């Protein structure tokens, strides 16, 4: 027995690794399958896939350079060349939308990502420790949340000035308390569940309990929140750009397109209609995706009996 421990026994270790990964892959495949079975999952995932493909491969997909002006051809309607028409300086709307997806993707994932990575651990730790730590963390959350988000975002944006990174940070700052709150509430509930005590009775150390037992069970509402938030962040970016506080022109962003389209709404309504449609579809896509993901991750809801 001790001999086994000392020697490396590579083939056996490799075999062990293989089996472990096999099991993990099986689990992931189950989740993906549960996803595919839901219509909302398929639709949501498709929409998001399109957005990300556009964002990643914009230079190759977009027919035109988004900043290429063609004044002679401005306000053009749909044509085989410019599928969605041109804007007030003759730039191709379709290409600008495609490049705009980059901004949308970066802002949404960046801000929500930071908010989750900061808020969730804070909330969970606060719930587990209780006492003074809990008090202070909640205080921080509540102070931030007590400011009306519109005002806080606008003021901060005005102070630090418009730039992509700034928007991401500001949005993350205003939204992390919500995740913290949810994570804390969920942790408070989960830690009282009997299986936590079961894990303790088996001798599981706190770290393991946190990672394997608590975190997977608190993620569900957080995923839903994040999904909807992704869409909301894109809206925020649009709003800020609309007000001139967002991404600085001439970068193509959907928000800027909305603003510019608004100015010329009577002359060329297509300038505002197309970005509007894209925004709505994106929000729908993210919401559907988040909901489908939540269901796919929950073994109980994946396969309802009735």
């Amino acid at each position: 027995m001790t001999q086994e421990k000392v020697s490396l026994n590579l083939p056996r270790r490799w075999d062990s690794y293989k089996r472990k990964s096999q099991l993990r892959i099986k689990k992931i495949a189950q989740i993906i399958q549960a996803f595919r079975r839901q219509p909302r999952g398929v639709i949501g995932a498709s929409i998001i896939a399109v957005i990300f493909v556009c964002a990643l491969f914009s230079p190759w997909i977009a027919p035109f350079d988004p900043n290429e002006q063609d004044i002679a051809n401005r306000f053009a309607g749909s044509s085989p060349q410019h599928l969605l028409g041109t804007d007030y300086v003759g730039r191709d709307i379709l290409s600008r939308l495609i490049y705009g997806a980059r901004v949308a993707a970066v802002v949404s994932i960046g801000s929500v990502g930071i908010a989750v990575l900061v808020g969730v651990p804070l909330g969970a730790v606060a719930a587990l420790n209780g006492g003074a730590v809990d008090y202070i963390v909640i205080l921080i959350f509540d102070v931030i949340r007590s400011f009306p988000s519109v005002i806080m975002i606008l003021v901060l944006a005005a102070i630090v000035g418009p730039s992509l990174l700034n928007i991401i940070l500001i949005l993350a700052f205003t939204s992390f308390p919500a995740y913290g709150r949810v994570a804390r509430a969920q942790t408070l509930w989960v830690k009282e569940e009997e299986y936590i005590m079961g894990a303790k009775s088996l001798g599981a150390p706190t770290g393991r309990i946190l990672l394997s037992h608590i975190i997977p069970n608190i993620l569900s509402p957080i995923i839903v929140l994040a999904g909807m938030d992704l869409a909301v962040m894109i809206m925020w970016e649009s709003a800020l750009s609309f007000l001139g506080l967002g991404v600085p022109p001439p970068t193509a962003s959907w928000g800027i397109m909305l603003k510019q389209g608004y100015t010329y709404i009577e002359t060329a309504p297509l300038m505002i209609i197309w970005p509007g449609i894209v925004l709505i579809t994106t929000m729908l896509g993210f919401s559907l995706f988040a909901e489908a993901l939540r269901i796919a991750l929950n073994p109980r809801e994946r396969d309802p009996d009735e």
Partner: protein
Amino acid sequence: MKKNMDRVPLVQVQGLKTYFYKGKGVLSKVFGKGLRIVHAVDDVSFTIEAGKNFSLVGETGCGKSTVCRSILRLVEPTDGKILFEGQNLLEFSKREMQKFRCKAQIVMQDPRSSLNPRMTAGEIIAEPLRIHGMKKYEDEIQDEVARLLETVRLSSEDADKYPHEFSGGQARRIGIARALVLRPQFIVADELTSGLDVSIAAAILDLMQDLQDEFKLTYFWISHDLHMVKYVSDNIAIMYLGKIVEIGRAQDISDGPLHPYSQALFSAIPSIKPGHETRKIILEGEVPSPIHPPSGCPFNTRCQRKLGAICETDVPPWQDAGDGHRLSCHIPLETLRKV
């Protein structure tokens, strides 16, 4: 040294007290009712011999679940001594506790909530092995999981299923399998058969008996099902409001319970033989709150044989009825024996 260990009882609980404190925060003290102490377990002592079945009986709120959790230190006791193989659990270091965990396991009451809903049965059973690093290679772990599933009469294909896919009886078997993984000597069974159909409960009891014979286990049963307790136990202790009111050999207690509460409890069980209308002792009122337990004897507010004022003022003494049969009551034994 080993010979000495054999003669020491496996588990000895002495003066166990577990209190919960409610309302410790600042706001509670100012606006609320202030500090309230829940006397969940109030000075409980008993001994369990290796290889035997000991049962703790009582109704909701009597503290029996807290006792079983306290002796495994899943809940920290407030006072008292818990001796496992002669050593005081409460003085164990972290490492010693880890070793103890391998020797003493618990099967918890509600199979649904005691199993992580996001882990498969196989993962749940394999977890103890991973925690204690007992098997290094994956195939060994999977083999062990399969073996344990067979031991509890489930199929090895069930390893990939999630807890909600199992029936109540099957989920309980998974809990039993998980408790067996580390090859413990001592298993606490918290309400193992409550909520189960008669035939399924019977199958589980048979399984437990087979396991006990095969692995030389010691069981600590917690239950409110007196039929099951009578069938299964070597020794019984009856609890009321955090205290043990009667303790002794199963035979003695079920044939002739002496404490008024035990008498009421045993008379209340619906009997299978119709026509044998035993005179039921119907207790008045409800169990008092453990935050404000009655002074003197905890049972004095509902006792059908209350002596008088002494029951309210003085804690009842322990009386010895022979052969390890003891009870805590002011009424003299001869009077109690006359039902």
